[in-house]
C-alpha cells in the first residue's frame, strides 16, 4: 500500500498496465516528455519509451481515429483527451466507429480502448475547461462510461477499463484530483492523504465495472451521485443531519441497477445529484429508471439537483455549481415531512 492522490493513483494504474501488457500504449496532447497537463502520465515515457507513451498532434479526431486503427492492429490504446470539453472533434470516431466496431463487423474487429479525460468544474476553468458531458456518451450504444471518486477506485476502475474488451470513456473529476472537495468552496480542501481512500495498492488490482458503492448507509433518502458530487452530497447530508444513503455509481453504463433499486425500495425517496446541465442529463435517465422500478415504494417525488442549463460561467462558477445550498434545499424538500 502507498498513499496516493487521484492523479498518482491514475499514474500508477497506467504504469501497472504498461508493465503488464506490451500492447498498452498511451497517447495524447502533452502526455509524453512533459507527462500531461495534470501530470497523470508523468515519468511514463521515460520509463517505457517513446513508442509506449507519446505526444500527439492537437487533433482529437486523429487521436481517437488512430486509436481505433491501433485496436484493429491488436493494441490496447489509452488515449488522453486533455479536457472533456475538447472531445467533440473526436465524437464521430468514438460514437460511429469505436463504439460500433464490434457490432458492425460481427466481432471481427473490436475497440478495446480506454479514453481518459478530465471533467467537471470548480477550478475556474470557464466554459471550455469545466464541462461534464457524460450524458452525451451514456446515450451511445456500445460505449461504457466510468467515473471514479477516490484514488483507490480511480486506479482499480482504470485497470478494469483498460482490461475491458469494449471501448470505455474514463471520466476523471479534476476537482478531486488532489482531495475530496465537498462543495464548501471557501474552506480549504483536505488532501487525499488524510483519507483512507488514498491507501492504494502498488500493483495490479481491479474495481469491477458496473458495480456501484454505498459510501454512506442510511434509511431516510437514497442519494445517487458520481465523481465530485459524491463528496459534496455526502458532506451536505451530514451537515443537515439527515440519515441518507449515498450511492457512488462509479459506472454510468452499464449502471448498477440492482444497488439503486434495493436502496430506493428501502428508503422510499431518491435524490439525484450531478454537476452537468439538467435537461437530458444522466439524472433524467436515473429518474426514469427509479420511477419505472420503484414507483410504488416512493413517498416523495424524485429530486434532481444539477448544474443549470447554461454554459459553465467563469466568474459565477460558484453560483452555477450544484453545491450545499441547492442540495440542501432539495434535501429538505424530499425529507421535510420526516422532520415534521
Amino acid at each position: 500500500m502507498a498513499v496516493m492522490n487521484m492523479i498518482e493513483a491514475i499514474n500508477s494504474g497506467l504504469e501497472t498496465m504498461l508493465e503488464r501488457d506490451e500492447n498498452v500504449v498511451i497517447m495524447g496532447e502533452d502526455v509524453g516528455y512533459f507527462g500531461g497537463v495534470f501530470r497523470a502520465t508523468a515519468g511514463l515515457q521515460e520509463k517505457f519509451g517513446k513508442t509506449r507513451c507519446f505526444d500527439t498532434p492537437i487533433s482529437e479526431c486523429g487521436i481517437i481515429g488512430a486509436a481505433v486503427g491501433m485496436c484493429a492492429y491488436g493494441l490496447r490504446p489509452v488515449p488522453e483527451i486533455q479536457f472533456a470539453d475538447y472531445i467533440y472533434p473526436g465524437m464521430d470516431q468514438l460514437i460511429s466507429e469505436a463504439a460500433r466496431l464490434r457490432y458492425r463487423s460481427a466481432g471481427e474487429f473490436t475497440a478495446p480502448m480506454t479514453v481518459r479525460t478530465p471533467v467537471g468544474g470548480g477550478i475556474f476553468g470557464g466554459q471550455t475547461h469545466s464541462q461534464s458531458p457524460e450524458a452525451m456518451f451514456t446515450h451511445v450504444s456500445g460505449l461504457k462510461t466510468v467515473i471514479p471518486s477516490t484514488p483507490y477506485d480511480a486506479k482499480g476502475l482504470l485497470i478494469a477499463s483498460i482490461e475491458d474488451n469494449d471501448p470505455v470513456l474514463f471520466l476523471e473529476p479534476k476537482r478531486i484530483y488532489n482531495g475530496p472537495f465537498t462543495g464548501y468552496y471557501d474552506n480549504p480542501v483536505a488532501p487525499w492523504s488524510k483519507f483512507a481512500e488514498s491507501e492504494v495498492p502498488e500493483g495490479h488490482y481491479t474495481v469491477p465495472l458496473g458495480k456501484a458503492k454505498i459510501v454512506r448507509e442510511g434509511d431516510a433518502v437514497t442519494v445517487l451521485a458520481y465523481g465530485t458530487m459524491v463528496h459534496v452530497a455526502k458532506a451536505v447530508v451530514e451537515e443537515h443531519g439527515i440519515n441518507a444513503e449515498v450511492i457512488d455509481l462509479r459506472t454510468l453504463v452499464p449502471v448498477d441497477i440492482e444497488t439503486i433499486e434495493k436502496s430506493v425500495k428501502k428508503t422510499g425517496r431518491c435524490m439525484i445529484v450531478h454537476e452537468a446541465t439538467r435537461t437530458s442529463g444522466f439524472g433524467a435517465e436515473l429518474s426514469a429508471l427509479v420511477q419505472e422500478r420503484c414507483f410504488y415504494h416512493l413517498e416523495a417525488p424524485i429530486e434532481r439537483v444539477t448544474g443549470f442549463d447554461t454554459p459553465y460561467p467563469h466568474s459565477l462558477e460558484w453560483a452555477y455549481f450544484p453545491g450545499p445550498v441547492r442540495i440542501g434545499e432539495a434535501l429538505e424538500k424530499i425529507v421535510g415531512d420526516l422532520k415534521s
Partner: protein
Amino acid sequence: MADEKNKSNLPPLSLHIPEPKYRPGDVVDYSDLEIPEAGAQARPDIHSAPKDMRDMVYDMIRVLDDDDTAVGPWDPKLDDETLVKMLRTMVQVRTFDDRLHRQQRQGKTSFYMKCTGEEATSVASTMALHADDMCFPSYRQQGILFVRGYPMVEMVNQIFSNKADKLKGRQLPIMYSSRELNFFTVSGNLATQYPQAVGWAMASASKGDSRIAAVWCGEGSTAEGDFHAAMTFAAVYNAPVVLNVVNNQWAISSFSGFAGAERTTFAARGAGYGIAALRVDGNDPLAVYAATSWAAERARTNQGPTLIEHFTYRADAHSTSDDPTAYRSAQEREEWPLGDPIMRLNKHLIRRGIWSVEQQEQLDADCLEAVKAAVTEAAKNGILGHGLHQPFETMFQDVFEEMPWHLKEQAAQANKEREIKWPS
C-alpha cells in the same frame, strides 16, 4: 460614422458557389483538361524527399499510350500471368456489379453500389500490395476482396443480408468486413477510415512489423476533418501507409469543385503536409499498379506515407438510390478522355499478343456464370425482407462483449414482441 463613409466606396462582396461545367443535356468539351502524354513522367527514386518531387502532384502518371503500349519509366513490366489476372479480376468485379445492381432492382436487397469505371483503382492497387498489408476501404473498393479471393457467395450473402451473412444482417449491403483477408470493416461514415489506417500503420511500425496499411477515400470526402487529421498524423509519425484518393469527379451530385478541385489537384494536398504525393491516371491499371508499388516500397522501407490521387470517372450512379441524369451530362461518361480501365487493359493484352477477342468473350461469359452461380447459391440462404433470417437475439449481441442487464431486458421485450408479430 467614418466607417460608413468609407464603406460607401467599396464594391459589394460576392460569394462564389462552384458550378460544374456541364449539366444534363450540355455538350461536353474536354479540350482544356490537361492530359499529359503517357510515359513522359519521370519516376523519382523511392528514396527521394517529398520536397524534391512536388511537380508530380500537378502531373499525371500514365503508362498505356494511345497505341495500347506500355511506355516510360513507370511501366511496371508485369508478366503475362499477372496482367491476365488483373484483367480477369476487373472483369469479374464489373460483372458482379452489373448483376448485383440488377438484384437490387428486382427487390432482392435494399441497396447496391457499383464501382464501374473505377475498377483499376482498387484491383490494380491491391495487386501491388502484399496480401497481409491492411486495407481500409471506403465503400467502392470491392475490387480489394476480389483480388484477395473473397468468395463471391459470401459477398452476396452480405448483400442479401441473409442467414448466412457473416455480418449477421447488420450492415447496409456492400459494407463488407474480412479480418482474415486484412480488409477493415466498411463504415459508411466518410473518411473515418483515414486516421484509422494511419493508426494501424503506426502500430505496425511501433511493433517493428513489416506490414503496411493502405486506405481509400473519394475526392469529396477529402473535405472531412478526418482526412486532414490523418494527413497530419501520417506526416508527424512517418506512418507506413498508402493514402489513396479516388477522384471520380462526383460525390453524389456534388462535383469535385466542392472539395476544392477548382483551385488545385488532390495530390497537391500531400505537398502541403510534406508527404510524397503522386497523381495517376486512374483508368490506366498499369499506372495505378506502378504508383502503388512505388508508394508501398517507400512505406516498407520506412520512408513513410504517400498520397496517391487516382484521376478517374464515376461512370455510373453513386448508388442504386441515385440518378445522375438529374445533375450531370451523360456525355461526360461517353467522352471521358481517359477511357475505360478494362477496355484499355484488354487492348494492351491483345497488342502484346497474349489475349484475343475470343478469349475476352469467353472471360465475360465465365465471369457472368460465376456471378449467377454465386447469386443462386446465396439466394438459398434467403433475400432481404423475406422472413427472419438472423436469429432474433443477434440484434442484441456484439453491442458489448458481454450483454449487460439493460440489453437483456430489451432482448426479452423483443422476444415477446416476436411472439405477437410472428406467432410460432
